């Protein structure tokens, strides 16, 4: 039943795309590990890390698109779910350091010793176990989304008001996480990680595995999203996006639909953040910055909202541009991002993926005209 559910949503194009994502996730680590550095085909470790990061961003973009593109909820706070997943992973990674920290305390992470904590705060218990952290990575963002969505959707808060609330949420969390008494590392956040599941986070083999994990998570996210969107639930979901009150008059309880995708999307963003953190080696409150959430929305807009492939392509394109421009012309980047957003909104309302089908349908009509 579940396999059928997961399979039914996958169109042929999407199957190929998921395969491509998995192929990248396997090929890059293999080319890094098995091809010696002297060979031209060798993939350097920094490349693994970069692609791994992009794959996590792509999963975040997919999460944003699931609520925005398919349900019309423009969330300007999805970075918060990403960061919460990241913090859960960060807590696990800090507890793996043990007595190898600067202060050598076997239980307390360095920042707690520095801040004169006598014992571990209650919410840190359990994070020494990976399975517990893995559950929290999904549960914590989901619970926040459930609480926010419950109140917002039941009170019929929609459109720009909902966007503002989500934006305020991530901003409030950022301010809260900046405080040292939150017990989560204050403005320094968490860094200096050593091990994940007993493997050194610095080792190339670990980076290779994390890059593969990122691809696997994205592939899984694509398959789950496709199943949800392709089901009868998905038809009702896009109908809610297009004509919410009409759906109510047909007898649909719209809140349930919105809440389900919002929570699912938050969980996906949380997983993305969790795999992201060991690859970049740090998590701090700036991940909650509203600008991050807005950037994720731009990735979706550029790639093509309301498609599943679009957000992945958008995340890769924009972030590749960011990596290139912040290196070559750092002062230009923000202007380029702004211009891009305006240009896409004006000229490519369906993003890069939409451009593809626009060109194709134009080609078809041109062909059709020839006989006449």
């Amino acid at each position, binding site marked *: *039943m579940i396999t059928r*559910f997961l399979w*039914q949503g996958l169109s042929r194009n999407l199957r190929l795309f998921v395969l491509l994502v998995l192929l990248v996730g396997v090929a890059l680590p293999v080319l890094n590990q098995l091809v010696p550095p002297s060979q031209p085909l060798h993939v350097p470790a920094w490349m693994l890390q970069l692609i791994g990061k992009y794959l996590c961003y792509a999963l975040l973009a997919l999460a944003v698109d699931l609520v925005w593109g398919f349900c019309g909820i423009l969330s300007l706070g999805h970075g918060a779910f990403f960061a919460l997943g990241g913090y859960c992973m960060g807590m696990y990674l800090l507890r793996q350091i043990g007595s190898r920290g600067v202060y050598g305390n076997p239980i307390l992470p360095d920042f707690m010793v520095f801040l004169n904590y006598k014992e571990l705060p209650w919410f840190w218990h359990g994070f020494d176990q990976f399975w517990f952290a893995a559950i929290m990575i999904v549960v914590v963002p989901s619970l926040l989304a459930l609480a926010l969505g419950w109140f917002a959707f039941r009170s019929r808060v929609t459109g720009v008001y909902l966007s503002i609330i989500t934006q305020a949420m991530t901003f409030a969390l950022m301010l809260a996480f900046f405080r040292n008494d939150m017990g989560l590392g204050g403005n320094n956040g968490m860094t200096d990680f050593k091990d994940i599941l007993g493997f050194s986070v610095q080792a190339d083999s670990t980076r290779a595995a994390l890059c593969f994990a990122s691809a696997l998570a994205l592939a899984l996210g694509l398959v789950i999203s496709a199943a*949800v969107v392709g*089901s*009868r*639930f998905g*038809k*009702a979901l*896009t*109908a809610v996006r*297009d*004509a919410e*009150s*009409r*759906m*109510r*008059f*047909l*007898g*649909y*309880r*719209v809140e*349930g*639909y919105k809440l*389900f995708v919002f929570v699912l999307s938050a969980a996906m963003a949380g997983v993305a953040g969790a795999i992201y953190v060991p690859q970049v080696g740090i998590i701090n409150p700036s991940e909650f910055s509203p600008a991050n959430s807005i950037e994720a929305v731009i990735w979706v807009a550029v790639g093509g909202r309301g498609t599943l492939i679009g957000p992945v392509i958008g995340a890769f394109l924009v972030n590749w541009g960011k990596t290139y421009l912040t290196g070559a012309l750092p002062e230009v980047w923000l202007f380029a991002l702004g211009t891009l957003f305006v240009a896409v909104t004006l000229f490519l309302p369906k993003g890069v993926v939409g451009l593809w089908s626009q060109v194709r349908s134009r080609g078809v009509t041109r062909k059709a005209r020839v006989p006449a």
Partner: protein
Amino acid sequence: MSMADQRSTSALLYLSGVTVSFDGFEALSNLSLLVEPGEMRAIIGPNGAGKTTMMDVVTGKTRPDEGEVVFDGKADLTKLDEADIATLGIGRKFQKPTVFENHTVRDNLLLALAGLRSWYKLLLASPTKLENDRLNEILSIVRMEAQQNMLAARLSHGQKQWLEIGMLLAQDPKLLLVDEPVAGMTDVETETTAQVLREINKTHSVVVVEHDMSFVRALGVKVTVLHEGSMLAEGTFDQVSADPRVVEVYLGR
């Protein structure tokens, strides 16, 4: 109250003393109305008479400040929301055809089809044989078999009207509220619409809100005239159109 209990046993829709005000303006004032099972009723009235507000009250979009609204002798509509009321069996057709443009014709009908509404059941459901048969039946009634896989956005205005009628058939409500069905239609289309409504009325109760007098005459059913939020007159078309108060309201002094 005893009056209400007595009447609510037979009436399909029962409104008594319904008052709705927006910022001090009374859109409905002390409106009472009875619709019997199987009846088709036309409701007319000049702009601002409260026709749309009455529909909003019945479908749960607007809560009345005072008064009773009872459906089928048992359900208190003032306590329910849109989804509950729709599930009880009250359908609504809007003046402007509202179909789901990004869905195919068949999916539009599937969404409207009476039955599954809860999100967790729909996640794993696929259309049953019974549902598919019903969809095929409706597609043939509205003569849209050929367009069933076409996106609704690509339909003409007239086809959208037909699709919406198909959706109402799929929803299969006990009571159908129809808001200005012939606005912007040609005479021929108006006549066809009157026929379709009479056809639907064979198996459903219908309330039609309209201000096209020739259309209301063509329907040939009991007419209720609203004015400034309450009932002005009720009776056959000829009775109400001979009523001097109705003439005054419609023609002015």
